[in-house]
């Protein structure tokens, strides 16, 4: 493992009894990268993440974080910030106390007021955690993970339950951390977030890593779509892929060319294309093809 590789798995596998949750998973994440691990329900993302975080030991293969064993809490853990999928707070502690406790056991140093401000919880500092909303708890969870600016940050469904403004705030903080060189491992069900923020994406299905690459690499083979209400009695210049509820859809591997053909045809014939929309191939398409695979 070179110094540039922060995290690496080699033929990693994990079994629960007879059930194989993760099989033969090999990934590498470089320093400063934001790597999104996505997948269908039960794909093995959480098991993978929890093993990378050091909560589980692999039952097959190797897992290394900073070149060491992620279960090593003394040397490896202080370099990691972990935002769990489910909170696990003490309801009778207040927000400030909760952050201070997480900070005290993190092995890193920071200023609680700075962290409170970063997650916009200053006015809730003395509120007991049991009285927070779901979104506020999620921000508290994030605060605990970013305490002391860890070198490696695990974000497990970080924006679930957050309103759009809070989501933007969280991603602003992540962007700031990345400018400082922090490596981020993300899992999310919001594909648009992975699409927008991830440098590379790994797609898991049935315990295996089915696809991996940049967004451009992943969507390269996927078709784009043009949808509209076709004028009655007209013969379209392009083959129709489907027609549902009066909405005609054309699939294309060259969106610009075929959109030009369609608009030219409509212009020349004086046709009005109601509800016209053009959608580039996206992670959604890759994900759906994976799920039906």
């Amino acid at each position, binding site marked *: 493992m070179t110094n540039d590789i922060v995290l690496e798995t080699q033929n990693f596998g994990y079994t629960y009894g007879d059930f194989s949750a993760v099989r033969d998973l090999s990934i590498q994440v470089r320093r400063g990268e934001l790597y999104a691990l996505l997948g269908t329900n039960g794909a093995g993302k959480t098991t993978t993440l929890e093993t990378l975080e050091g909560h589980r030991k692999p039952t097959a293969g190797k897992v290394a974080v900073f070149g060491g064993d992620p279960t090593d*809490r003394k040397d490896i853990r202080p370099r990691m910030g972990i935002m769990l999928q489910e909170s696990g707070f*003490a309801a009778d502690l207040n927000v400030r106390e909760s952050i201070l406790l997480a900070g005290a056991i993190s092995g890193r140093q920071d200023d609680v007021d700075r962290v409170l401000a970063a997650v916009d919880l200053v006015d809730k500092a003395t509120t007991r955690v049991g009285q927070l909303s779901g979104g506020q708890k999620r921000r508290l969870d994030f605060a605990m993970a970013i305490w002391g600016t860890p070198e490696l940050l695990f974000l497990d469904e970080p924006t679930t339950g957050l309103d759009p403004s809070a989501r933007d705030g969280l991603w602003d903080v992540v962007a700031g951390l990345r400018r400082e060189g922090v490596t981020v491992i993300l899992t999310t069900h919001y594909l648009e977030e992975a699409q927008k923020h991830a440098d590379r994406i790994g797609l898991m299905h049935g315990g295996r890593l089915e696809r991996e690459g940049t967004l451009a690499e992943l969507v390269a083979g996927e078709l784009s779509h043009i949808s509209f209400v076709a004028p009655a009695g007209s013969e379209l210049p392009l083959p129709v892929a489907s027609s549902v509820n009066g909405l005609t859809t054309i699939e294309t591997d060259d969106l610009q060319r075929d959109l030009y053909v369609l608009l030219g045809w409509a212009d020349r014939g004086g046709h009005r294309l109601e509800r016209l929309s053009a959608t580039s191939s996206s992670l959604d398409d890759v994900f759906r093809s994976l799920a039906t695979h």
Partner: protein
Amino acid sequence: MFSIAAAELKMLVRNRLVAICAILMPLGLGLVFLVRGTTEGAPALAAIQIMAMVSLGVYITATTTLAARRQTLFLKRLRSGAVSDGSIITGLVAPIVIVSIVQVGIVLTALSVSAGAPPANVGLLIVALLATEAMFVGFALATAGVTNSPEHAQVTTLPLFFAILGVTVWVTFTGFGDLGWLKRLLPGGGATELIITAWSGGDLSSVASLIAPTLAWAVLGVFAAKAMFRWEPRA
């Protein structure tokens, strides 16, 4: 560990139900027994008070606390940090043990005043109390391994709670003579005899044989916990 212990102490005091169960009930129980205090009966009464208070204040409270912290994923949260499992458990249990020691101190002081007979061997009494606390912590760790929730703890702690109180009453009412070896080996038996010996100033030659089974139960509890304890709720 200290930050976890400080947080746990805050939670113990702030949650009214927990505060009543962990602080007021054992204290109240100890003081109720005090009403019957006499000079002759003080050693036996001290033994019953300690065993009842520590079983309620440490055994049941620690089992309930560990189950509750696991159920809310707080244990998993603590394991996401850089501290060891031992430090986490120590941090969670230490405040409960400290509160228990203070409670017992208050009640035994009151007993020695009301009965007009202070303990003959305070040092040994402290050793006996600490050994008893260790034994109940061991039992709590083991019982927490088979306890799914705080509510479940009300059921899982009952067998051992009543068994130990039964042994305590048996030893205090029948003395050490008949089946003495069996009484010492049973959970709580050695501790009861040790407390009575410390308070009444009895024969010290058997002290080691009283401490040993008490600490052996503590060690057994820790080993059982190592095999059975879970850090996360069952999926």
